[in-house]
């Protein structure tokens, strides 16, 4: 029987990393203790979406994933999406729409929207709702988040295809 040592290797926001872990540790706990605090702990049971990260480009709950499951994969957190000084378009639109109240849900919302924008070519409401169905917000009533997202998507749809490809490959180095 091949026992694994208690380390895990994966690409985190474009950089190859090795972390010591325990078989029981959730990816969310590992990320937060390693200083990636943008990913939030909300419910810890796969309902709220505050812990959403991308695993090989797909939105995933880090609270339901053992860190060991990320071996060899590409993990991206909110830290890869934008910074305070250089926010992403969606982050700018969220601020402009007044869609951030307590803000706890926002990193997860941004990561789900990132998966959407990088995966789907046609951004109709139905498909947008599907990608956002696992993120709860307890403050805003969603309307302003929806407005901000729709504006971001409409802007992306209007942008020339080349610029779109360039911006979507940002941070997804494997």
């Amino acid at each position, binding site marked *: *029987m*091949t*026992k*694994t040592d208690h380390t895990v290797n994966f690409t985190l926001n474009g950089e190859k990393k090795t972390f010591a872990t325990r*078989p*029981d540790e959730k990816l969310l706990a590992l990320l937060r203790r390693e200083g990636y605090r943008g990913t939030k702990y909300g419910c810890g*049971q*796969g*309902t709220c*979406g505050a812990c*959403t990260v991308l*695993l090989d480009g*797909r*939105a*995933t*709950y880090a609270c*339901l*994933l*053992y860190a*060991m*499951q990320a*071996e060899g994969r590409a993990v991206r957190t909110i830290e890869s999406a934008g910074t305070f000084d250089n926010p992403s378009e969606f982050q700018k639109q969220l601020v402009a729409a007044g869609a951030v109240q307590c803000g706890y849900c926002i990193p997860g919302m941004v990561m*789900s929207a990132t998966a959407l924008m990088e995966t789907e070519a046609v951004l109709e409401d139905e498909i947008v709702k*599907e*990608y*956002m*169905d*696992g993120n709860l917000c307890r403050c805003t009533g969603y309307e302003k988040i929806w407005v901000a997202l729709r504006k971001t998507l409409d802007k992306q749809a209007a942008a020339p295809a080349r610029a779109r490809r360039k911006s979507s490959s940002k941070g997804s180095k494997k």
Partner: protein
Amino acid sequence: MKLSEFIRPASLAEARKSLRQLGPKGMPLAGGTALHFMPGKTPVTAVDITRLGLSYIKQKGDFFVIGAATPLADIQRYRGPRWAMHEICRRISTHQVRNVSTIGGNIARVFPWADLPVVLLAMDARLVIYSGKEKDMPADEYFSSQPARLFRGGDLLTAVKIPVLKAHHGFGSVKATRNATAFSLVTIAALLELKGGIIKSARVAAGSGIPFPQRLKPVEAALAGKEASTAVFREAAAAAGAAARWVGGEGMSADYIRQLAEVSILDALERAAEFARGRAA
């Protein structure tokens, strides 16, 4: 469930060997989403089965073959001739859960709310089990009681085979919930075979709202040989009470759940008939 070790076997044979050695101290891990919620005082070794080439969907003769470790999101996205699995997958939990949780994880250990066993019972699917070599069995036998019984010796579910629907077959599923991502109150799936306007055969199954997913034989009997009409569907749905033991909960009475089941059966049958007629031409 507490994990004491985490291993990544290189092959199916190696995974089975490890699980056999570990006995009750080992547990296959697919998406791992259910493992977090399983009680168990003694820690187990997780045996990761997601790196063994078990994630795929392909059409092979009269069947769609779905690898056991295929995420629900992939099944939802897949399109094949007369494919009907996407609707129910879209209704399971959230985008983030569907990206990770697998068809095998949903049916290897059946939780009361699981939706896929219902659909697979109605569709007359076959389940492929690896015990050194692969062997398949019909859904009726597989779901006759908790399937986890089949995997205690280290065997693994490797694939699910779903019959490709023929031109005169139709399928419909309904999942009644309180909100879009909630667990099901009642899930119904129906497969109808029509000839002219007549129902040649019917398979109707239910889950949630009853102790364990099962077929609704009295409902099926009320359909066979009859005209595929709303009146007949309504009459068949009324047999739901005799077909299973409906249970209430969360403030809902058993009688309410039964009524919900009747409405859902009618709805599923209408959808199945529409599927059969609409795509038969």
